[in-house]
């Protein structure tokens, strides 16, 4: 069985698991307590914070640990809300944790704008610019789209935002980019940046929000004042430590090269006139395909004993529509035929070639039966 749904989640790596076990069973103390073993845990936690910051290439700001990217996104956006006539701008292709929150804000009478996507799947930069002004409070644009793998030019987004929305905070959902693309946050000048541990071989249930200036943010929950007062509650130390370890264990540059080769080999073998590859300028880790005349759900199930693929977003796999593909201008029939394959550097060329062949053959068989 070949697992090609690494954008949904990844297997925990050995180093991360060891670290998790150590902080769950041996060094399990509450980092807020005042005795020495607890202080040691607190120091380790802060070292992890520093290491993650370094890995992201951020020279100032703080790392707030959360239960995952969904919480980090919610904290970034809800924490930025202010009274008065402020405006909030989101890309139309965001993950459900941003997209659904943006829709909720609309119902709370906030002024919310959605920026359309271009045909290539990237945010429409001109449309973004046209929506900004000095009343814009927050702009939220994801780095790598979780459905299509399309990479937004965050440096360009940042430039546009700084020039046309001087009072705005810029939030970037970096879930599918962290430990996947080589980048440096310093080059981007973003205020808020979300990430999730289980997407890069750490434990599930942990993530983080990078905050350039934490005075700009308000806490959502009240409690013991952990995480600079922005996220009360005892830290999930084992998971956090596993996340820092997993991050450290990744050779991002090398893996990027491997993933690029894997994707290239996969695309070569999946090539067919009835199969559309979605998007341009995409991450080497994600590949979105539209199959003509076959339901993606059926294909996914028909494949599951030999190849595991995703349906775009595990979080919204149960829903019929898919707002990202819709925003790119695909129709309902095309969207029904969508499946997402996502790679990991641990795969071999032979794996992805065999997977591509199996997918193609299974598709042909179904197509014959359904035509």
């Amino acid at each position: 069985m070949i697992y090609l749904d690494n954008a949904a989640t990844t297997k925990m790596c050995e180093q991360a698991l060891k670290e998790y076990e150590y902080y769950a069973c041996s060094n399990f103390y509450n980092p807020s307590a005042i005795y020495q073993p607890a202080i040691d845990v607190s120091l380790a936690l802060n070292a992890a914070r520093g290491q993650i910051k370094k890995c992201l290439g951020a020279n100032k700001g703080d790392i707030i640990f959360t239960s995952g990217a969904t919480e980090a996104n919610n904290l970034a956006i809800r924490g930025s809300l202010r009274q008065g006539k402020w405006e909030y701008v989101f890309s139309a292709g965001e993950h459900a944790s941003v997209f659904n929150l943006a829709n909720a804000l609309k119902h709370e009478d906030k002024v919310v704008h959605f920026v359309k996507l271009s045909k290539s799947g990237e945010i429409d930069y001109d449309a973004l610019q046209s929506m900004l002004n000095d009343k814009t409070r927050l702009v939220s644009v994801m780095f790598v789209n979780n459905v299509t793998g399309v990479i937004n030019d965050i440096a360009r987004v940042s430039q546009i935002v700084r020039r046309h929305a001087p009072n705005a905070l810029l939030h970037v959902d970096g879930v599918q980019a962290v430990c996947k693309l080589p980048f440096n946050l310093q080059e981007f000048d973003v205020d808020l940046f979300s990430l999730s541990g289980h997407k890069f071989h750490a434990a599930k249930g942990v993530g983080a929000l990078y905050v350039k200036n934490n005075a700009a943010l308000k806490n959502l929950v009240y409690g013991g004042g952990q995480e600079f007062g922005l996220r009360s509650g005892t830290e999930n130390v084992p998971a956090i430590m596993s996340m820092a370890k997993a991050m450290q264990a990744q050779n991002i540059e090398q893996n990027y090269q491997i993933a690029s080769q894997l994707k290239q080999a996969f695309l070569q073998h999946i090539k067919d006139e009835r199969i559309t590859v979605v998007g341009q300028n995409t991450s080497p880790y994600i590949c979105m395909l539209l199959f003509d005349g076959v339901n993606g759900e059926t294909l996914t199930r028909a494949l599951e004993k030999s190849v595991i693929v995703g349906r775009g977003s595990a979080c919204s796999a149960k829903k019929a529509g898919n707002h990202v593909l819709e925003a790119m201008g695909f129709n309902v029939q095309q969207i029904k035929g969508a499946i997402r394959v996502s790679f990991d550097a641990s795969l071999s060329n032979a794996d992805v070639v065999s997977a591509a062949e199996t997918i193609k053959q299974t598709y042909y068989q179904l197509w014959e039966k359904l035509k």
Partner: protein
Amino acid sequence: MKSILLRMGELYLKGENRGMFESILVFNIRKKLEGLKYKLQKTRGRILVTDFDREQEVVERLSKVFGLVSLSVAEEVDVTVEAIGDYVSRIKIGDKTFKVDVNRADKRFAIPSMQFAADLGEIVLRCNPNASVDLYQPQVTIFVDIRNNGKAYIFDKSIKCQGGLPLSSSGKALLLLSGGIDSPVAGYMMSKRGLKLQAVHFYSYPYTSQQAKQKVITLAEELCEYVDDIKLHCISFTKVQEEIHAKCAPEFMITIMRRIMMRVAEIIAKREGLGAIVTGESLGQVASQTMQSMTVTQDALNLLPIFRPCIGMDKEEIVKIAKDINTFETSILPYEDCCTVFLPKNPVIKPKVDKARAEEEKLDVAALVDECMAGEEIITIKKQ
């Protein structure tokens, strides 16, 4: 002593074989109360549950036994004027309006019912000086039921039960369980008429998901609240649907599919000794539920009748029952069932038997049915 008084509505209508119905009912009650402490006593026209310690649990379980119309939690006292009067004098009703209702099944108790009710009313008034009598719309009714066993039962309310006939007293049948709203309701309704059900589910993996099958298992579990256990036969229908799609006219897809389902159901029913097939069809709801479609479907069966308890009901009425029996939330989970796969754009609404038979000629029906049976998976589902 506290007792629960059980009333058996429709069984009163039974003549010579009433004893048989009653013993099935008692057997079902004992099964329902398994694991709880209680004693059961059959008197003329009533069943009594005594010596229990978890009142709420006992009442909750009994309220789901078919064949009982209502029950009351009552105080049991000796049939003497003093004992009854003494208990009634301790009832506190504050400033509410009330009446006393006496039922004298034991006519050896000499005071006429009306007279005794008035006497007891006086006692209540004396002990609750702010209360007043209202014979038409009282806030509290004190019932006194004088039975033949030398005991009287005093209670203030009746809890409605399911009614119907005791489970199994009408025989056994096979329910076609799809995963929608209607079929669990049909199953409930026929169980209420005393049928012990088994169920058959058709699925079309990979066109339908494992979750769709799991949903049907959950529905069967929910029905088990009433029917204790269900033997569920799961049949893979993929090959049948692919064959029909490849060989028959598209508008006959559903018609032929239903006919083959009936054949499979009949084989299971015969093997298991089941006397009817139960479906959730409601007249005119969809193309396969028109009068003509049902005629064509029935034509595929040799002998067994099809019971369709929802036939004359509106969707709203079916939904109401589904909500009452707690299957609605599961039924509306968004997983496709096998009827939505290969759905033709224009299914035939008024099919003719000869045309359907002719379409079927294009298939090796016997072989397809055999294949369905070969892949049969049986799951026994019990109350959680």
